[in-house]
């Protein structure tokens, strides 16, 4: 187990290193002067010069990359004459355009995205898996057909559509809840939940639809297995056959999927955050792209990649726990 963990963590670090290198390289391969890009819109000549100096843009690219990477682990100082800006570890860069430390920026936005992703995951797992199990155990039944109609709608409707429509109706037309903003859970859990309800439902609708279909297919396959017949031949009650023998095997693939989807969502629920104006990682990325705020884009990309890498490792570990046939390798 220890060797497995070390290998997987090393592998994950290599993936992150590749992601960071590629992202970093893109800025320098992109047309235009990086100093101009880093300095912000319509900068003065002095501002460009200062930016060049602070970021060390005259240095060879590998040296610049090394500074960026070492900054993550030990922090770094941006020096421009007598003007020193310290960026403590983990330093993902510093945006001189908005004078913000990227790590702090991401740290501030992270709770929003985590709230959105975790809440939605609970909803979609409960709804999607339940619908999928019922459909898969009784395919062709009324419940199956009903669930599959909803699933088709969930998969087909784009999330920007459901988000805009629900916001328009619930907030502006019927005025059931006031305009959505973000309130921290610790500030007021009730308002936190009220604000996030629509985002959760919109994400969960899409994902629950996918999960219902996948769970259904998995359950149909499982319930046709020989060991289900054996369970019945033992004289077990049908409820036990389904809930113990069926679910144990049928839901295993769902664990993998849920881990990876959650990891992806933690890197930013871009559309939902943007539509509902929630200040999460996804909205941060979109705003940074709109404002050509390169350090922020680089930082968010790395963090999002890290979530996916970690989710992958966790899923692999979890799989070893749930499936006795899988060996650590």
């Amino acid at each position, binding site marked *: 187990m220890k060797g497995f963990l070390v290998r997987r963590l090393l592998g994950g670090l290599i993936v992150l290193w590749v992601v960071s290198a590629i992202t970093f390289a893109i800025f320098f391969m992109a047309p235009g002067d990086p100093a101009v890009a880093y300095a912000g819109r319509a900068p003065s000549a002095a501002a460009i010069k200062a930016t060049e100096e602070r970021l060390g843009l005259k240095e060879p690219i590998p040296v610049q990359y090394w500074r960026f990477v070492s900054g993550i682990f030990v922090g770094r100082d941006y020096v421009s004459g007598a003007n020193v800006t310290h960026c403590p570890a983990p330093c993902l860069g510093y945006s001189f355009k908005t004078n913000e430390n990227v790590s702090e920026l991401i740290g501030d936005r992270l709770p929003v995205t985590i709230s959105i992703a975790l809440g939605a995951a609970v909803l979609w797992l409960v709804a999607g898996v339940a619908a999928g199990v019922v459909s898969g155990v009784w395919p062709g039944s009324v419940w199956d057909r009903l669930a599959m109609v909803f699933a088709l709608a969930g998969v087909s409707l784009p999330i920007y559509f459901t988000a805009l429509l629900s916001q328009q109706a619930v907030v502006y037309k019927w005025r059931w809840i006031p305009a959505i903003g973000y309130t921290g859970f610790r500030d007021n859990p009730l308002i936190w939940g009220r604000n996030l309800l629509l985002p959760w439902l919109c994400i969960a609708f899409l994902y629950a639809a996918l999960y219902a279909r996948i769970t259904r297919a998995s359950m149909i396959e499982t319930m046709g297995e020989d060991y289900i017949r054996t369970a019945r031949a033992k*004289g077990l009650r049908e409820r036990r056959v389904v809930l113990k023998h069926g679910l144990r095997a049928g839901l295993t693939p769902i664990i993998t999927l849920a881990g990876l989807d959650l990891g992806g969502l933690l890197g930013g629920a871009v559309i939902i955050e943007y539509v509902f104006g929630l200040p999460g990682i996804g909205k941060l990325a979109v705003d940074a792209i709109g404002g050509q705020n390169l350090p922020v884009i680089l930082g968010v990309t790395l963090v999002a990649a890290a979530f996916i890498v970690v989710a992958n490792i966790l899923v692999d570990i979890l799989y070893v726990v749930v499936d006795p046939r899988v060996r650590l390798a």
Partner: protein
Amino acid sequence: MSGSPEPGSPEAGSAESNSEADAFLHVDGLHVCFDTDDGVVRAVDGLSLRLDRGRTLGVVGESGSGKTVMSLAILGLVGGRRTSTSGRIWLDGEELVGAKPDRVRRLRGGRMAMIFQDPLSSLHPYFTVGSQLAEAYRAHHDAGRREAWDRSVEMLDRVGIRQPRERARDYPHQFSGGMRQRVMIAMALINDPALLIADEPTTALDVTVQAEILDLMRDLQREFGSAILLITHDLGVVAEVADDVLVMYAGQAMEYGSAGDVFSQPQHPYTWGLLTSVTRLDRARRARLPSIPGTPPSLISVPAGCPFRPRCPYEPRSRPASSSVRPELGIVARAGVGMEGPEHRVACHLDADERRRLFGDEVAPLL
């Protein structure tokens, strides 16, 4: 179809069933049909058999002859909206067809148990062998976890698994094929079933392991006094362990009798075909192993008359008038080999004398 009463009809009263059900397992006119989009599949088509405790009935036939469906029907495991089961099955005098599903469920795994063909796919991959055995025990006994676990270990020991206490904590994939089949047998026998149905229990195993498993089943039968319904396509296995033989084709009985009668005086051309196509190491290699020409019929469109007619090499010798009539499973004059077991019966349009001559001249030299 059959003239047997519908399950649950007034004729199926208890007074009559008691007189009918003198055998421990008695199947009478069993039909199992699946309604598919292509037509009705008659998987079991009017099958009758009797089996007493302590005896073994070998059910032989090619793949798709309805053997497995028949055994699942006895256990009450064929179901679904497009399936219909009719005819009658008695287990120790209790009628099973048409009985409450919950009643049949209680018998299943308790009074009657089944060993499946492929032990790897038939055991649950995510549960330890011990817990799967214990679950079977607790399904029929009011026992605690500890007691059920001890009983599982005891059964594993009984079927010859070494270090049973340690092995009970292993998962099915950690066992070899033969050991897995022993686990299956232990699971089937954990509740001392009076009827054990073994569906091709040795097909997935090495030849050497096959013999061990058959020996084990025989020993356990002696110990538990169970009736065994052994389903196989391997006549060698049947010759080794069965007291009685039922030859099935297209969901129907072609020949039925004691093993002594069927092996010494086989009556049906299909049985002859099965017998002559058995590989034997103790004789000179023939140019080519004989086989039965053609393939079994689709069970959607079984030919009228004798289902074996299209593949029967002796078909022209039967009376033309009988081509559209299904032959009855009629009694053959007893050879007097033994008075135990069922009367020797065959469903064939050929004359008894003609069959005797054909067997003597054409079939016996090949055996």
